[in-house]
Structures are given as C-alpha cells and as structure tokens.
C-alpha cells in the first residue's frame, strides 16, 4: 500500500493575514512559478432574521476532512499542471472581518492556478465535513448553509 502523507489544514481561530505574505515570500525561490491564485474567505456580518453575525464557530470531522482533502489534492494535481497547493481552514471561533479560509495554488502559467483554485474552493465548501455555527449579536446561534 502506498504511503500517504496526510497534511493538516486546520488552524485554531482566525488565519493571520500575515501568513499570506510569509507564504508568498517562501515561494520566491521556486523560479518555475509564474502565477499564484489565492482565495480568502472572510467572516461576514450577515443579518439573519434573528440577529447579526458576530463570529462563526467552526467544527469538523477532522480525520475524515483530512482524508478527503488528501483525495481532492491528488485529483487536482492529476488534472492541472500545478507547482503547489496549500489549504488552511479555521476551527473554533473566527470573528467578523477575520480570515477563515486561505487557499493558495501556484503554477507555471496563470490558467492552471486560477482554474484549480476555483475548483478547490468549491470542493472545500461541498465535500469537506466542516460546519460553521453563526454566533449572533443577541447570543442566539444559527447554522451556516453553503450556497
């Protein structure tokens, strides 16, 4: 059986914006890269019928999510000529305005990075067992639904 290296994608709390700059800098030495496509999810102050969102609290079926992410990663590397792919998703509480998802895809030419990044974001939203609970300003809660 082939050895699999399952990478962690989960971070407790918000993903620091600084991480984006640090990760971009790390790729300067990979001189075959011509394009980086980055997607960031930011927690919105949505208005529900029951209140305004102040934070989202994320939970996940971690083991299954990491296995699934591994499969998604392999399938996208097989489909697109990519140089690298990095995913970071928050667990726990992420306040409004903070980053909860950081997807970073790099390739030689721009089309592969952009197409793979878009497909990856969709797969993360619809295939990873992760749930977001919206914390409202009146201390009520509402379960997030992906569209």
């Amino acid at each position, binding site marked *: 059986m082939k050895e699999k290296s399952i990478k962690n994608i989960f971070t407790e709390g918000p993903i620091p914006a600084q991480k984006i700059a640090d990760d971009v800098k790390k790729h300067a030495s990979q001189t075959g890269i011509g394009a980086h496509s980055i997607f960031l999810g930011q927690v919105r102050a949505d208005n529900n019928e029951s209140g305004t969102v102040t934070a989202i609290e994320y939970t996940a079926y971690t083991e299954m999510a990491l296995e699934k992410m591994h499969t998604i990663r392999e399938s996208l590397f097989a489909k697109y000529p990519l140089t690298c792919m990095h995913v970071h998703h928050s667990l726990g509480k992420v306040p409004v305005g903070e980053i909860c998802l950081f997807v970073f895809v790099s390739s030689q030419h721009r089309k592969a990075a952009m197409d793979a990044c878009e497909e990856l974001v969709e797969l993360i939203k619809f295939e990873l067992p992760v*749930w977001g609970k919206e914390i409202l300003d009146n201390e009520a809660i509402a379960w997030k639904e992906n569209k």
Partner: protein
Amino acid sequence: MVTILFFGSLTDTTAVNELMMDAIADTEQLQVLLHEKFPALQSAKYFIALNQQMIQEKTVLQNGDTVALMPPFSGG
C-alpha cells in the same frame, strides 16, 4: 460495539457528540434506534459516513465501526 458521531446542527438535537451502542445489525436498524432516542432527528437532513466513507445504502455494521451523522457541510 459501534461508535456513533454527531456533527454540526445535529448536536443541538442530540446534546452529545458521541454515543457507543452495542448489538446493532446495520445502519437501518441504527437509524430506527436513533430516531426513537432523538425524535427531532427524523426531520433533520443528514448524511451517513461509515468509517469515514459516505454511504447511501443500508450497510451491515461490525464491531469497532464508526458511524458519523453529518448535516450538509458549511465550511469555508
């Protein structure tokens, strides 16, 4: 012994994240028992994963299996 995991909004109904149950033949029997124990589950939309694999059909359960009940995902 089978481990049952509850995720997302389902935990509002079950109030627990995890249950251990004994002598369950298959996933259909498991659902009947869980719907009895937590009637609100009957109207909840959820998927079932057996040992981290999504399943659509009735599947026989074995000692040591983990069954997860998962509402629609809402990550990202």
